[in-house]
């Protein structure tokens, strides 16, 4: 299609405009994070205040919060991805009674908002003594990720070549060997996408850790940030530095593996 130079130039103007709109607020928080902590510090002249991050890490206790987040995210990723691979395998390549109904049950979990079950879940977990523990914070999130993960892995196993599975079966490989020695290695890209999305959702989750740890014993990074904002109304620089720290792990992964994030979130949303 022939297009004029004007149209091409218009495109760049539009793209640059929207890129700036997106980057603007991010730039604001990053520049605040490197900015002076108070007016008296500002008078000493212009400088990049890298020490804000160290101070937020210790004084703002972001080091502690991020450690909690890493532990919770690790538990959720391991449990959710393992369960999803196994369940997706069953739905993707096996025929069995009740598969349609059971799969619909998993789809329900993708659509139902956390708000539908968080209140009774909290009180039942409290009776079991699981609130204010990493398990109380992690397991409900694992359950939510399993809903999406099963759906996601099923789609992968369905697309995997049946002839490979047939050939392996004729060689006498059992279903478990076919899964771990053939399908999982070939499916690494799909599994990596699932790992990344699960990690991101867990890292960024707010409502579940807020409700499940009312005493604040298991305070994940986003919660720590919200708490910090409520506690220290003066320290804008430390708050901004904390915000940058909280966002950084996922943003770094996104920069290096953005294809997985974008295709995962877009394809994952396109229902069959």
């Amino acid at each position, binding site marked *: 299609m022939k297009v004029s130079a004007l149209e091409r130039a*218009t495109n760049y103007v539009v793209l640059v405009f929207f*890129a700036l709109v997106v980057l603007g607020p991010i730039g604001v928080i990053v520049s605040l994070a490197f900015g002076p902590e108070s007016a008296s510090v500002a008078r000493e002249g212009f400088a990049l205040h890298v020490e804000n991050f160290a101070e937020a890490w210790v004084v703002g206790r972001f080091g502690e919060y991020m450690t909690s987040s890493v532990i919770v995210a690790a538990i959720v990723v391991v449990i959710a991805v393992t369960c999803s691979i196994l369940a997706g395998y069953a739905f993707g390549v096996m025929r069995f009674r009740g598969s349609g109904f059971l799969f619909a049950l998993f789809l329900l979990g993708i659509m139902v908002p956390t*708000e539908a079950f968080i209140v009774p879940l909290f009180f039942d977990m409290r009776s079991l003594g699981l609130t204010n523990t990493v398990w109380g914070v992690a397991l409900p999130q694992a359950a939510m990720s399993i809903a999406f993960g099963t759906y996601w892995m099923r789609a992968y196993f369905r697309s995997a070549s049946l002839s490979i599975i047939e050939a392996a079966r004729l060689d006498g490989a059992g279903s478990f060997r076919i899964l771990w020695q053939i399908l999982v290695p070939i499916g690494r890209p799909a599994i990596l996408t699932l790992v990344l999305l699960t990690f991101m959702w867990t890292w960024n989750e707010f*409502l579940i850790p807020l409700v499940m740890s009312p005493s604040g014993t298991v305070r994940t990074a986003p919660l720590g940030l919200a708490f910090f904002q409520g506690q220290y109304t003066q320290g804008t620089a430390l708050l901004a530095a904390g915000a940058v720290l909280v966002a950084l792990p996922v943003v770094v992964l996104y920069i290096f593996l953005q294809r997985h994030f974008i295709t995962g979130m877009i394809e994952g949303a396109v229902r069959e």
Partner: protein
Amino acid sequence: MPGRSTRRSGRAWVPYAYLAPALLVYGVFLLFPIGRAAQFSLFEWDGLGASTFVGLDNYVTVFQDGRLLEAFGHAFVLIFFFSVLPLAIGLLVAGVLNRAQVKGLGFFRTVLFLPQVIAMVVVAVAWRQIYAPDGVLNGTLRALGLGHLARPWLGDYAFTLPAVGLVGTWVATGLVIVLMLAGMTKIPREHYEAARLDGAGAFREFLAVTLPAVRGEITVALTLTIIAALKTFDLVYVTTRGGPGTSTTVPSYEIYRRAFETGDVGLATAVGVVLTAVVLVITAVVNRIGDRS
């Protein structure tokens, strides 16, 4: 193959064994609590003492309590900012971009999608700084000589809900642009050439060729963003806590407040059930319209 069929029937339990771990975690921590929610919503309970069966009274309250109705109203206003506005911008921008290929689109896509991966709490903290009385927005207005427009954006009864909504627009628009572009690049070029031979202008071409082709992407974009709008929690919790007054309270925030602050556990659960019903109905309607071709 007789050997195979016997093996299969002899191992009918195998698929269920693969499903078991997922079903266990999912059942215990998601399905069972959903069932419990239906039960909880029929009781009046403060979270500590004895509970009283009240039938459907909590649901009646959801539709009579002014503050709760207001919360649902705000959620619908947020749909405009989280879904309608981003979709309009996304269609326009992607439609313009699709007419000419540009280099570096991959880079711009990465940037546009960025808000999707940043924790909403971080986004909320950033925008709170922007909207602060002596924040970037008011500073810019004053520098432009528009100081009379400056106001405490998150402390003003009329402006706070749109201000919070625009944060949603900021988050969602990039996603919608990326989705629309993905749909539009799949349209065969010949379709446009045919339209041009018929003498269609840019606008007619957009309506006749582009729009019908991205129907599926529009459905996905609306589903994702409407659900995000209806279950907004982090953003309101961090920026306004529902204030000033009740001007930005939303269903999710009311659920949290009623269950864990004011001790109306049954009512909070009922709000959750109603919110879920609203989400499922709107998702179904959007997909129904999208599927019809």
